[in-house]
């Protein structure tokens, strides 16, 4: 062995020379290399994303479906509340209060009450409305559904009332409260009503409903975050060998996490798009029947789709929530390895 070594080394040296020339020429080219352009980075990210989806298409689809379902609920909730909230437009100008009389109140009692009400400082005029007049009014309000009122007319259950018209500039709430304290009102009427009162109640109810929707939306966003986060966790777990190699090669945590985050963002964004699409479908299917049904058109006087602002906001929120969700569920795993 000792004798042959010099000859072998000579041979190796000549091969080594060629190799070294090749290597140095290769390395020579790699000084002052351009770094990746933004476009190149984007391209690489898309390529990696596609590779990742292709390596586990069913996981991706399953997550996409559940996330879509979640965002569909959010979008439909928004569709409902945005239309409901714009439907309650009660004229604040009308300054009328109705004092409904007790059943069987006599003519003299009515007259007495009317006189008292006319004396009030805020009263412009006080008009008696008989049960028959109330029924006529009701029929006009119902319009095409007046067959219903026909049934009522045989045995009219509507109470008699006195309608007060208030002077310009009166605070209707204060006036109503004052009326309620009058002894005669207490004695002869069953209740005092003004439209703003019910509108206010309805608005309160609506506000409550909107708060509920807001909470539900937060809940649903949390669900979406959970779904996207666990999908990212699953994805990184499926690629744990690759993650380890990248770490051994000196890839930063950010470099490793970014593609998984991107995948999460795509899932969230696509899910939100599907959600908006589902809401649009529901809008298309329901718009006509809402317009035709008098009950529904009372609730939704003009039924329109989500505003562009709402759609964009929903997409942005979806992207942000899923980015954060996948970042936080994946970062720890990568650091740990």
């Amino acid at each position, binding site marked *: *062995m*000792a004798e042959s*070594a010099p000859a*072998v*080394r000579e041979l*190796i040296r000549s*091969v*080594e*020379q060629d*190799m*070294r020339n*090749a*290597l*140095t020429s*290769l*390395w020579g*080219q*790699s000084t002052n*290399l*351009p*770094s*990746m*352009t933004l476009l*190149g*980075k984007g*391209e*690489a990210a898309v390529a990696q994303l596609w*590779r990742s989806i292709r*390596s586990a298409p069913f996981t991706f689809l399953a997550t996409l479906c559940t996330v879509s379902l979640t965002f569909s609920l959010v979008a439909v909730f928004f569709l409902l509340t945005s239309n409901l909230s714009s439907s309650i437009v009660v004229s604040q100008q009308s300054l009328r209060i109705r004092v409904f009389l007790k059943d069987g109140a006599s003519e003299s009692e009515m007259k007495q009450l009317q006189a008292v009400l006319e004396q009030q400082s805020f009263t412009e005029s006080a008009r008696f409305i008989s049960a028959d007049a109330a029924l006529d009014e009701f029929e006009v309000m119902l319009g095409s559904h007046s067959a219903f009122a026909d049934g009522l007319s045989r045995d009219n259950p509507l109470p008699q009332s006195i309608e007060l018209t208030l002077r310009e500039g009166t605070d209707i709430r204060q006036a109503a409260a004052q009326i309620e304290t009058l002894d005669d009102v207490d004695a002869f009427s069953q209740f005092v009503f003004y439209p703003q009162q019910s509108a206010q109640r309805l608005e309160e109810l609506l506000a409550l409903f909107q708060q509920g929707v807001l909470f539900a939306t937060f809940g649903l966003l949390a669900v979406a975050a959970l779904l996207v986060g666990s999908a990212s966790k699953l994805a990184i777990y499926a690629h744990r*060998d*690759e993650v*380890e*190699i*990248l*770490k*051994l*090669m*000196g*890839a*930063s*945590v950010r*470099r490793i996490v970014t593609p998984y985050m991107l995948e999460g963002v795509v899932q969230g964004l696509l899910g939100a798009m599907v959600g908006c699409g589902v809401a649009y479908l529901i809008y298309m299917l329901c718009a006509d029947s809402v317009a035709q049904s008098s009950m529904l058109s009372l609730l939704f006087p003009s039924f329109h789709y989500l505003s562009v602002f709402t759609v964009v906001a929903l997409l942005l929120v979806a992207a942000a929530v899923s980015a954060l969700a996948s970042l936080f569920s994946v970062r720890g795993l990568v*650091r740990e390895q």
Partner: protein
Amino acid sequence: MIHFRNVIKRYPPKEVALDGVDIRIAEGEFVFVAGASGAGKSTLLRLIYGKERASTGEVVVAGRNLATGDAAHIAALRRSIGIVFQDYRLLTRRSVLENVTLALELQGIPMAVRRRLGMEMLELIGLSERADALPPALSGGEQQRVAVARALIHRPKLLLADEPTGNLDVKMTKAIFDLLLAAHSAGVTVLAATHNLSIIEELNLRTIVLDKGKVLGDFARPSRVE
């Protein structure tokens, strides 16, 4: 370049893989780490690239104590060196070309440039025809050559090669060592763990012999000792 000061490495619960190792490797050296299976060769290398931390003692690489380095520092160190893993560690879902150019990718070098340099490197190891294949479709020896090419493409300051020719026949072993020697003569510090005694004898370069975690000998010219 590399300095071990009385390094002990224990793997829990009680395996002592390195037991009081003191070595110093200067820039530009070519050093073999020899020893039987289980002697601690891989552990020594893992301490250098920060995969494991010394239980006691100090490991200083490129002027920095790895025990005090944070994750970002270790990542930067790993990007600046080349590592050939004993079990190759190729990305099984990426093509041979993508594997070879991974270090360039991590440096943010554009795809077109990576492709060109990668093809040139594959030419050098005789695998240009398999550029688009996936690693599992390659033989063990071919995978090993890809692993060596990947470790060298970015002109590392330091090359750590753990059994870089374990799966190769005599001819391929020579070719790989030609490549390592070429890198060395171009200025790369090389540390190669192997139990291939004939190549150690043939090349007759500095050799550190480990046994049961202890340095048995540190020979500047092992052939003369024989």
